[in-house]
C-alpha cells in the first residue's frame, strides 16, 4: 500500500510535469489556426450544401470514424448487458425475470403531471435534433439521447411496468441493430455504383433546406435510431437490476 502510494506519487508528479511541458508548447487560447477548420469551413457549403460544419465532418468528411463510433456505442451497450447479466446470474435470485417483477412507490401528482407533459415535447424535440443536424448543431447522437429520455419520463410518471409496456424489448433490440446496420448499408450504396465507400449518391438539394446534404440526413437518422434504442436498452437493464435489488432488500 505504501509502495503503491509512493509509486503513484512519483508517477503522477512526473506525468503532470510532462503534460505541462507539452501544453506549454501548444498554441495559446484563441491562437490555433487549424488548416483543417479553414479548409472545412470553406468547403462544406459549396461541396456538401451543409450549413453545420461539425455535422459535415462527423457524417461525411470523417464519416467513417463515426461508423466506428456508432459501433463503439453498440458494443458498449451489448457489453453492459452481458456484464449485468453475469452479475445478476452470479447473485442467483436477482436474475430479474418476471417472477420478481419490481414494484415501486407511486410518484406524486406533481411529478406525474410534469413528466407526462414533457413526453410529447421531448419526442418532437428529439426528432427535430436528429433530422436537422445538417442545418444547425445536432444530429443523430444528440437527438438519439433526447429521444431516449421520453420512456424515462414515462417511468418517472408511472412505473416500470408502464415503461416496459411502451417499449417493446424485442423491437428496441432490433431497432438498435437496424440503426447500426443501416449506417453500414448506406455507406455501401456507393460501392454498388463503383465509387469509394460512403461517397454521396443522392442529390444535394439546396443549402439550408431539410433535404440538403445528400446521405447525411439519412446517416443521421440511422445513428439517431441506434443511439435512442441503445440508451433505452441500457435504461431497461439498469432499471430492472436496480429495482430488483431494491425489491429484495
Amino acid at each position, binding site marked *: 500500500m505504501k509502495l503503491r502510494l509512493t509509486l503513484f506519487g512519483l508517477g503522477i508528479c*512526473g506525468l503532470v510535469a510532462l503534460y505541462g*511541458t507539452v501544453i506549454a508548447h501548444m498554441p495559446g487560447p484563441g491562437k490555433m489556426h487549424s488548416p483543417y477548420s479553414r479548409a472545412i469551413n470553406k468547403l462544406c457549403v459549396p461541396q456538401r450544401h451543409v450549413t453545420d460544419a461539425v455535422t459535415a465532418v462527423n457524417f461525411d468528411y*470523417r464519416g467513417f470514424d463515426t461508423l466506428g463510433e456508432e*459501433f*463503439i456505442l453498440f458494443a458498449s451497450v451489448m457489453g453492459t448487458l452481458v456484464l449485468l447479466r453475469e452479475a445478476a446470474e452470479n447473485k442467483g435470485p436477482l436474475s430479474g425475470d418476471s417472477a420478481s417483477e419490481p414494484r415501486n412507490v407511486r410518484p406524486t401528482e406533481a411529478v406525474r403531471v410534469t413528466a407526462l407533459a414533457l413526453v410529447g415535447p421531448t419526442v418532437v424535440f428529439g426528432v427535430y435534433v436528429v433530422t436537422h443536424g445538417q442545418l444547425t448543431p445536432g444530429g443523430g447522437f444528440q437527438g438519439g439521447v433526447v429521444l431516449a429520455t421520453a420512456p424515462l419520463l414515462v417511468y418517472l410518471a408511472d412505473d416500470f411496468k408502464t415503461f416496459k409496456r411502451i417499449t417493446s424489448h424485442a423491437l428496441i433490440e432490433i431497432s438498435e441493430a437496424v440503426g447500426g446496420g443501416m449506417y453500414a448499408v448506406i455507406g455501401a450504396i456507393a460501392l454498388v455504383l463503383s465509387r469509394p*465507400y460512403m461517397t454521396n449518391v443522392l442529390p444535394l438539394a439546396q443549402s439550408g433546406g431539410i433535404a440538403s446534404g445528400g446521405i447525411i440526413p439519412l446517416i443521421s437518422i440511422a445513428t439517431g435510431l441506434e443511439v435512442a434504442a441503445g440508451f433505452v436498452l441500457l435504461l431497461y437493464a439498469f432499471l430492472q437490476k436496480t429495482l430488483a435489488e431494491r425489491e429484495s432488500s
Partner: protein
Amino acid sequence: MFLWPPLPVVLPLFTAAFVAAAGPYLPRKLVDAITLGTAAAVMAVCCLLTLQSSGSAIVYWFGAWVPYGHFPIGVAFVIDPMGAGMAAFVAFLVMAAFTFSWQYFDDVRTLYHSLMLIFLAAMCGMCLTGDIFNMFVWFELMSAAGVALCGYHADETGPLQGAINFSVMNTLGAFLSLSGVAMLYSRTGALNFAGIEVALQRQEHLGVFLPIVFIFVIAGFLVKSAAFPFHFWLDDAHAVAPTPVCILFSGVMVELGLFAAARVYYSVFAIALLPWLPALRTLFLAVGATSAIVGGLMAFGQRHLKRLLAFSTISHMGVMILGFALFTSTGLAGTALYVLGHGLVKGALFVGAGILLNRFQSVDEFALQNVGRQMPKTAIIFILGAVGLAGMPPFATYFGEAAIEHSGTQAGLPWISIVIMLSGFLTAGAVLRVAGRVFFGWGEKPTGESRAPRIDLKREMQGQKSKTPPTMWLPAAVMLIIAIALGWFTPLRQAILRDATWFRNTRGYVAAVLHGSAGGPGQYHVPVPHAMPGMHIGGVWMPDMWREVITLALAALLAAIALFPYAIGRRAGTALRHGAALAMRPLHAIHSGKIGDYVAWFTVGIAALAGYLALRR
C-alpha cells in the same frame, strides 16, 4: 479496387448488426455458419489486398475525399502488405475461434457472435488505417468489444474483476493516447499520418514536445501490447475470458498494440524523432527484455493454465518488442514472423487448455494431474506447443527469433539472444511441466496448503462431454501445422522482409498518400536486403540452431526438476523449492490483482518513458 478495401471492416460490422437483430429468430447452426463465413470472406479479401498492395500501396479515401491541395480532409486506408497480411491473420484466428466455439458454449447467445465480429472489424481497421484518429476509433472499438467478450461467461469466481481491470487499464491508456492525438493536432492541424508527418517537418521550436507526445500517443498501444510495466491486466483478463476469446487476445490483440505503435512511429515520427533514436532504442530494448524475463518467470510460477499461457504471451511479447526496438528491417521482419508463429502456437495451446476445461471443468494444473492419460491428441498439442514456444525449427517462431538475433548481433547486442533463450526456456519449461503432470501423471502429489481445490468451473461448459468433438481439436491441429509450414515456406519469409522494409520507409509512405504512388516517388522504391539471415543452407536448416536445441533441452530439464524436485535429494529439493518461492515472492507481490497498483505502475511507467526521452537530447 473500389470494392475491396472497406470490406474487412464494413462486412463484419454489418453481419454483427444483422446477427444481433435476426439471431434470436434463426437456428443456432445457421448463425454459426453465417459468422464463420463472414470471417472466411474477410480473410479472403485481406489476402487479396495483400497481393494487390505488393506492387504499390493502396490509398483509399472514404467518401472520395481526396486531399484538398495536398492537405488531407478525409479519412484514408493506406494498405500495405504488412497491414493487410496482419488483417488476414486476424481473420484466420477468428475463424479458428469460431470453429472451436461451434460446440463449446451450450447456452451461447448471438451476442457472442456479434461481439466477435465487431472485434474482428475493429482489428482489421487497426491494420489498414492511415489516419491517427481513425486508428484510435478502432482501438476503442476493439477495447469495447474485448471487455464485453472478456466478461462473457466467466470461468471463475469474481468473474467481472478481470473484465474491469482490462477496461480500466485500457481506458487510462486510451485517454493518454487521445490527449496525444489532440496535442499533435494542435501543432499540425492534421490527423492523417502522412499529413501530420509533413506538417511536423515545417514546425520549428518543437523541443521536447515531440518525444513526450510520441509516448503519450502510444501509451494506449503499450497497455494493449502488455509491455512491462503495463501488462498487469492481461493475465487477469485471460484468466476469466472464454477460451476462444483467449485465442484472439493472445494471438493478435496484444500484438496489434505493438503493430499500432510501430505504424505510428514509422509513418509519423521516424524522421522527426531521429535525434532521439538511440534513446528510443535503449528504452524499447529495456522494456522488451524486462517483459520477456518477468513474463517468463511469472509463467513458470503459475498453476492456473490460462494465466500461465497469458504470462507466456507477455514474455513472447517482450521478444517481439526487442525485434521492433532494434529499428532495423531485419528486426521488424523477425517480429512479424514471430507474431505469426507465436499466434498460431499460442492459439493451439489455448485450444488445448479449453479442451481440458471442457472435459474436466478445471484449468488448475494440480487438479488436472494424471487426468489426461487417455487424451493423446491434447497431449501432442501441448508438447508441440512447448516446442514451438522454445523456438525450435521448423516452427515459424524459430525464423522470427533467428532474424531478431541476427539483427541484434549485427547491432552489437548479442545479449538479445540470451534474453530470447531465457524466454523460450521458461515458457516452454512451464508448458512441458504441465504436460508431464496432466498427461503422464508425473510429479509429486501436492501436499498441505498447495493441495488443489477442485475448482468448480461450471459456467463455460455445462453438460460434460465425454468425447472431445473434432471441431475442438481440429483448429489446434491446423494452427500447429501452419505454424510449421510457414517456417518451411521460404518465399513468405522473403516477402515479409520486403514488406518490413517498405513498412519502415517514411518518405515513401508520405509520398504515396499525398501525391499518389504513381508519378511521385513510389512507396516501394527502397533497397530491400536481399535475404533473411541464415536461410542459405537447404533453405531451412541453419548452422546456429544449437541455441534452440539447448533452450528446449534446458526447458525439459527445468520441467523435470519442477516435477521431481526430490530426485536430486530430499534436502536439496526442499532447499530449491523454498529458494524459488522466496525469489519469486516480490514478483508475485507486484502482480497483486489490485487495480490501484496497476494504475500506479502505469503512471510511473509512462512518466519514466517520456521523462527519459525528454531529458535525453
